[in-house]
């Protein structure tokens, strides 16, 4: 496949395959291009983008954006460093591209539930985030709908029941799991169709804990919206807060001081280490190897406590602020961090060695839950899951933000795509994050930690690499207040990957496959 050079507006015309006037193309602050298209052009453009290896990274709507239609639908296409946003103005109907980009399916259903936009030609028109109990015609993201609970139906007939894919055949039976689980975990429903122990089909149903995050953000002052961004998913607090701040800063053209970016990056990398460590511990718990699991749990807890010493919060909340960080971290504290991390690195290596030299663990991990490389683009799979399946995308490398252009992480992708590959990729990323933090602390400049520039109206897209993969955040500020806050976490993309990863595996291996993908329920269900 030829990679059409993508530079400036000429490249875009060639890419889209039709002529388009310059005034419909705008270049965003982070070198992304937005192109205003009508429905017909949109389908043609989507076909061409699919041919040119673009993936659909997000699709979302905003009300009263352009004045040309009631809703504007943004489709964010991505290929390595290139980001192209197609904007359509629609009233109540739009064309579906789920046939071209399977990842569009959830986004379009999300838009339909939120705004009541009908997607014509969609192959899946079931509800997504609104469960059966919500009344017909209720679309909470419309501006006219107040932010409070609607009348919830206590009972509903069988005609409203969510239709799961039905798999028939001799010996096939259904195993429903969840949304209430035996352990203290988040709610999600898994509908397995199995033949004996072997999983034939899995359908995941999420959105049992919808908190109305996007609606909650609307009308707030941008600074007051930070706690909302941090609450999207607990263990991605720093990543989501940073993405939100980046979007606001780009929209308002606020320049973030150098020291602030160093501090932010240290926190971002610490968060990555914590997340990967809990994953690795969880994977070992799920194959019943507590000896290894406990080592990682202990190390994770120590990092979390160190984070609390650095920032006053175990999840490092309240530290990221629009324009920089809220409080400086003294150089003594930072050198203490390096001392701790040196010791940590030794102990982590020992733990890793024990695990990787236990044959029974390797036997459980290897060839389990394979995510095939051919799925990466259609489903827009991201993060360590993609990097363990032969993908080499990492926002920090492809589109470096902050100071990642000077501190490029070494990504070491593997191509097996199994649980072992994901475990190993996470291990090498922990090592790399440790290196990064040491270099950052050594090089950190002095100076201001927060810009005093004011927030201005506008809109911007921010893309960031959270521990789980690419997180995307789009913010529109209108009259000094948040008009629309859209966040799409890596989990939203990767949940669909698990439906494919488990096929042909046995039920008893599902927990470890699930854990190895580290999917956040909260991050999916806003």
């Amino acid at each position, binding site marked *: 496949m030829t990679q059409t050079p993508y530079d400036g507006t000429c490249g875009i015309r060639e890419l889209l395959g039709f002529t388009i006037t310059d005034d419909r193309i705008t270049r965003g602050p982070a070198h992304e291009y937005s192109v205003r298209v009508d429905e017909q052009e949109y389908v043609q453009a989507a076909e061409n983008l699919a041919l040119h290896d673009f993936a659909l990274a997000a699709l979302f709507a905003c009300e009263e954006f352009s004045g040309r239609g009631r809703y504007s639908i943004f489709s964010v296409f991505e290929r390595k460093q290139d980001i192209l946003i197609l904007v359509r103005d629609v009233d109540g109907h739009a064309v579906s591209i789920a046939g071209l980009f399977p990842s569009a399916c959830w986004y379009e259903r999300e838009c339909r539930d939120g705004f009541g936009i009908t997607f014509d030609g969609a192959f899946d028109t079931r509800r997504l985030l609104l469960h059966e109990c919500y009344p017909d015609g209720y679309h909470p993201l419309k501006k006219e709908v107040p932010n409070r609970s609607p009348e919830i139906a206590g009972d509903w007939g069988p005609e409203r029941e969510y239709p799961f894919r039905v798999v028939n055949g001799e010996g096939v039976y259904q*195993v429903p799991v969840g949304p209430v689980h035996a352990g203290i975990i988040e709610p999600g429903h898994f509908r397995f169709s199995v033949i004996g122990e072997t999983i034939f089909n899995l359908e995941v149903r999420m959105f049992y804990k919808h908190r109305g995050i996007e609606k909650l953000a609307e009308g707030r002052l941008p600074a007051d919206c930070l706690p909302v961004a941090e609450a999207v998913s607990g263990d991605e607090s720093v990543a989501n807060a940073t993405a939100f701040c980046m979007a606001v800063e780009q929209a308002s053209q606020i320049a973030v001081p150098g020291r602030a970016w160093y501090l932010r990056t240290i926190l971002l990398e610490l968060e990555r280490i914590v997340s990967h460590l809990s994953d690795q511990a969880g994977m070992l718990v799920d*194959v019943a190897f507590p000896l290894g699991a406990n080592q990682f749990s202990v190390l994770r807890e120590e990092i979390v406590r160190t984070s609390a010493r650095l920032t006053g919060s175990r999840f490092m909340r309240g530290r990221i602020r629009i324009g920089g960080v809220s409080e400086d971290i003294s150089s003594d504290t930072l050198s203490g961090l390096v001392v701790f991390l040196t010791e940590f690195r030794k102990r982590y290596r020992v733990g890793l060695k024990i695990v990787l030299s236990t044959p*029974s663990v390797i*036997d459980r991990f290897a060839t389990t839950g394979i995510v095939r490389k051919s799925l990466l683009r259609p489903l827009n799979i991201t993060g360590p899951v993609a990097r363990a399946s032969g993908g080499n995308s990492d926002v920090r490398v492809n589109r470096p933000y902050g100071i990642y252009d000077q501190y490029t992480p070494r990504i070491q992708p593997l191509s097996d795509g199994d649980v072992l590959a994901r475990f190993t990729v996470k291990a090498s990323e922990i090592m790399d994050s440790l290196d990064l933090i040491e270099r950052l602390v050594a090089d950190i400049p002095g100076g201001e930690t927060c810009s005093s520039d004011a927030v201005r109206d506008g809109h911007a897209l921010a893309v960031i690499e959270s521990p789980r993969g690419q997180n995307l955040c789009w913010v529109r500020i209108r009259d000094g207040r948040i008009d629309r806050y859209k966040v799409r976490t890596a989990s939203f993309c990767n949940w669909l990957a698990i439906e494919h990863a488990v096929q042909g595996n046995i039920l008893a291996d599902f*927990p470890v496959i699930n854990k190895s993908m580290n999917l956040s329920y909260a991050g999916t269900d806003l």
Partner: protein
Amino acid sequence: MAPDFVLYIIFNTLFVLAAAPLWISVIKKVKAWTQGRQGPSVFQTYYMVAKLLRKEVVYSSTSSRITRFTPLVTMAAILTAALFVPLIFVPEPAGGIGNIILFLYLLALARFFMALAGLDAGSTFGGMGSSREMSISAIIEPTTIIVFAALAFVFRTTNIFDMFARSAATGTITTPILILIGISLFIILIVETSRIPVDNPETHLELTMIHEGMILEQSGRNLALMELAAAVKLTVLMALLINLIVPFGLATTLTATGLLIAAVLFVVKGTILAGIIGLFESSMAKMRFFQLPSLFAMAFFFSALIIIIEVFA
């Protein structure tokens, strides 16, 4: 029935009930230590059983009488099986008690009712646990028979009482056969009591459960009975291993001091064996479900080897 035998029934049953919860906790304690944790008290299982006995019993609305009497049947079958394995005192065998085939089928009876109860409550996980348990038992049963046949060949009897009496009289047998029997019995013990690498007794992770899946819908005193029955089963299988391999101290005549020494020695030996089980469990992850037969095949192989040695050597 001889008065000795009546006394034996009382002593053995009381002792097994009293001691059984201890080993469960000892295994947990050892596992906790290997992980650098403090772990629960060694009396935790006693507290848990005591707590459960006071709790209300809740039945699923789809359950039938099977769920209601399974705990009793299981406990009765396991306690009867416990009579077949003298823990501290070996009397003269009476009736069919001590027959290894009957012993095996008492365990199978308990297993059968547990699997039925797993299906009965109508929950997914119960059914899954039952299906897995039955798959495993279909594979482990021939292996167990071969292991017990090997024992019968070595001790020239099919009665556990006679086996114990012989091993107590001759002391520890010091032949390579001992090692082979030990390994085979240990594997049977691990499989029958649903421990790592076959099952994980500590998880309620729905999709991987076997034994815990079957008893998931049990509550209150019924759950207490099931938990206690599992502990007794573990103790009985441990006793089989201990009294065949390291029988010293086993009382063959009924004296107070003899019984006391035997009881103390049994607790010591049991604690050591529970420690070994804990270390064994810590050293590996659970096996893939479909690879379990390779573990059973090991026990099968060693036992078949014993029979060949006994027949031709």
